């Protein structure tokens, strides 16, 4: 296959993603009883576009399916089929399979044959296409619609040329009419070149800023009728003198060759700049051509190229830190200019990194839009009634994050429907609306994006969770756990509260997988649950995967990095603030509560790490959704932006570590996985004294 066609096909798949998402929205609108005609037409067009492209690129299965879908849509569009509940189900199914087929064509992941066959034959039937073996159904040969039709002989366009002299009267500006608007209107008719006459421009001290002292001569080449030109002139004839002259040479007999438009065409911007009285150019000076060949709103770029850019910017962003370290021995006074340059460079590189990040950003809508169909499926399979409210879907985040969010969010939604929202009867009995509410929202907070999924269900059934955890040996019997600690058990690997594996959320991916996926992206998952009122999952994700703002700490001879966004405070504890419990536990009395201390030296068996917390530093961090913990390190080195490298890809997964990096001075360092560390702590038996303090 030619490279060009491959490129076009790649573009087509990108379009398909958008088209499928828009199709989904249309079906969602139809279900919600929105404006039917618009949604039906939009859905028709989306399916139609997929069909056309699929045919052109030889994606037969996709094309065939889209054809059947489109035929059904056509009947709906023309009112020859009824849009009842069954039809809407069919549309949902159709869009689902459409997405799978696009995936299949793109990645070779085969769409489930039963679903394909079922949806395909249902659509064909509904569309009134003859039912037959699905894959042998021949495409109807397109008749030649031009056969026997006489077409009008073609001819090339003819242009007329006008010279228009625009001389604003003294009241024109005062009346709020911008002469440049007139030029812009003329520009809409064809190609325009503008000359400015500034000969009436008085000396600066005599200048009345409320009066226009300029005159314009406009050469217009247009295929629009003279009436259009007169109409534009007529709008201002009481405020300005406008003279129109037709300069068109006599009609040429042969169709003209296409001509390149006049080089002197001017843009409104150029005219604006020139119209500022003081900056006006010499009278009659031609305004340079600044018109672009074609307005370009977007450019499609291959993802690998973006990734390369991102990686390079990522490498670059550690350079200032490296230089700053090299320069740290220098006298700041003597080398003031060097330091200033360093500062500036650092700022520019950060801006560059921001810009590179924003290029890769994608709205969350891409993934959020799929959940309408999911919730609908769940309603069917569980018999519960649910309303999904989505907000903030325009929030943008790194494309890779968007793609990887689909699975964990799907699981969270399944979980909320399965375990959170009660059946309609139970809800009624509890005095709630029988329809459960599921809210999915997203919002940017600084360098992070917060995604929340909340339900108004029963909340986490803590006694049951605790019983399960004890039964599975995750918690020792008789342990006294706080609510938060119990909730956290949901994320422990292997834990599942489902009595039986349900078809909804019991699919082998547990909440631990959700936490792991989010942690891999440098994010955190938390949950807040109130009995009888509902549960809220919050995901905290970095805008970009590549760069992390981290606190560099020293433990023994090793460096460990703590994401700065999670740090609450760091302190050197007084001996009196430490409460030593029996066994290995030491607690820190901090702002009226008792925090557990996790010594990184002990946790990671670092040789040469300090044992005594009073000689080290405690960094108080808040893992998402978890309790505050105090991490014990030997020393703090400073804050540094770092490029996150996967440890898993280069070595293996290490519990408590989310990634690795190379510091500005060239030394390797490990990045702490705070949620995992929090979970480790939460599972350790905790002495009585700590729980009740505060």
């Amino acid at each position: 296959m030619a490279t060009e066609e491959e490129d076009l096909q790649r573009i087509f798949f990108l379009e398909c993603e958008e088209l499928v998402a828009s199709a989904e929205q249309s079906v969602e609108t139809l279900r919600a009883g929105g404006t039917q005609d618009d949604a039906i037409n939009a859905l028709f067009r989306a399916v139609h576009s997929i069909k056309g492209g699929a045919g052109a690129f030889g994606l037969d299965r996709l094309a065939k399916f889209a054809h059947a879908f489109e035929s059904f849509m056509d009947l709906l569009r023309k009112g020859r089929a009824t849009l009842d509940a069954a039809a809407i189900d069919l549309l949902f199914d159709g869009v689902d399979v459409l997405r799978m087929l696009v995936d299949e064509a793109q990645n070779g992941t085969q769409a489930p044959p039963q679903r394909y066959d079922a949806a395909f034959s249902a659509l064909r039937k509904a569309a009134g296409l003859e039912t037959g073996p699905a894959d042998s159904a021949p495409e109807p040969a397109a008749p030649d619609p031009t056969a026997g039709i006489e077409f009008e002989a073609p001819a090339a366009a003819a242009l007329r040329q006008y010279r228009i002299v625009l001389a604003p009267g003294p009241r024109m500006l005062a009346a709020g009419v911008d002469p440049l608007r007139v030029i812009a209107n003329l520009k809409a008719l064809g190609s325009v070149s503008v000359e400015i006459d500034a000969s009436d421009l008085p000396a600066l001290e005599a200048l009345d800023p409320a009066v226009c002292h300029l005159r314009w001569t406009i050469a217009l080449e247009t295929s629009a009728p003279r009436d259009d030109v007169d109409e534009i002139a007529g709008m201002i004839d009481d405020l300005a003198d406008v003279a129109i002259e037709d300069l068109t040479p006599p009609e040429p007999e042969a169709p003209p060759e296409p001509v390149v438009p006049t080089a002197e065409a001017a843009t409104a911007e150029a005219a604006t700049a020139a119209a500022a009285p003081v900056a006006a150019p010499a009278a009659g000076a031609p305004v340079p051509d600044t018109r672009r060949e074609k307005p370009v709103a977007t450019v499609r770029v291959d993802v690998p190229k973006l990734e390369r850019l991102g990686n390079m910017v990522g490498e670059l962003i550690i350079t200032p830190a490296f230089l700053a370290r090299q320069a740290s021995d220098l006298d700041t006074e003597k080398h003031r200019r060097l330091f200033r340059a360093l500062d500036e460079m650092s700022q520019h590189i950060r801006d560059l990194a921001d810009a590179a990040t924003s290029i890769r950003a994608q709205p969350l809508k891409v993934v959020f839009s799929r959940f309408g169909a999911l919730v609908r499926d769940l309603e069917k399979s569980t018999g519960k009634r649910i309303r999904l409210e989505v907000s903030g879907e325009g929030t943008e985040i790194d494309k890779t994050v968007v793609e990887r969010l689909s699975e964990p969010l799907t699981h969270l939604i399944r979980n909320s429907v399965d375990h959170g929202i009660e059946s309609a009867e139970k809800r009624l009995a509890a005095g709630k609306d029988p329809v459960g509410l599921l809210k999915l929202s997203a919002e940017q907070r600084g360098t992070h994006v917060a995604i929340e999924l909340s339900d108004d269900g029963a909340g986490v059934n803590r006694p049951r969770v605790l019983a399960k955890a004890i039964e599975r040996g995750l918690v020792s019997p008789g342990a006294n756990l706080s609510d938060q600690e119990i909730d956290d058990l949901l994320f422990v690997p292997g834990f599942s509260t489902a009595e039986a594996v349900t078809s909804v959320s019991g699919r082998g991916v547990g909440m631990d997988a959700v936490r792991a996926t989010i942690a891999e992206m440098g994010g955190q998952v938390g949950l807040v649950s109130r009995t009888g009122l509902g549960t809220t999952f919050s995901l905290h994700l970095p805008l970009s995967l590549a760069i992390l703002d981290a606190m560099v700490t020293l433990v023994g001879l090793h460096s460990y990095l703590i994401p700065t966004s999670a740090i609450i405070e760091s302190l050197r504890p007084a001996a009196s603030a430490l409460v030593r419990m029996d066994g290995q536990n030491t607690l820190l009395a901090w702002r009226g509560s008792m925090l557990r201390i996790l010594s990184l030296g002990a946790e990671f068996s670092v040789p040469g790490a300090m044992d005594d917390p009073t000689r080290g530093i405690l960094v108080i961090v808040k893992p998402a959704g978890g309790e505050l913990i105090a991490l014990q390190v030997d020393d703090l080195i400073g804050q540094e932006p770092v490029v996150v490298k996967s440890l898993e890809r280069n070595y293996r997964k290490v519990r408590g570590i989310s990634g690795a990096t190379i510091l500005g001075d060239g030394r390797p360092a490990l990045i702490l996985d705070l949620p995992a560390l929090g979970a480790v702590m939460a599972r350790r038996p905790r002495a009585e004294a700590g729980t009740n303090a505060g």
Partner: protein
Amino acid sequence: MPAARSLRVLVVDDQPSMRGLVRSYLRKMGFESIDEAPSGSDALKELGLRPYNLVISDFNMDNGSGLDLLKNMRMHPVLKRVPVIMVTGNADGETVTSVVKAGVNGYVVKPVSLEALKQRVVHILGQLT
């Protein structure tokens, strides 16, 4: 016989991939001056900027149909003489009648192939060199 490279063609489609495909076919036929417009209204703007020898438009677009573009062109004193090839997904009688009535010069049913497009283009502009 007109030289393809001396002719200017405008390709109108809301899907970049489809514009790209038609453009690649046109290049294979020897055209060099090929412009694109993502909608009928953009196409009208382009048509006002420079003369075109041929317009190839999609029928069913997100933002105003190819039929509207065709009708607008046919009502225009100058653009009414610019030949238009319509690319449509369906060859049903209704669609055909509507574009033929509106004064289309040629008609290609999706999926567009180089051969089908070339046949129409040659039919309208004559054998190309």
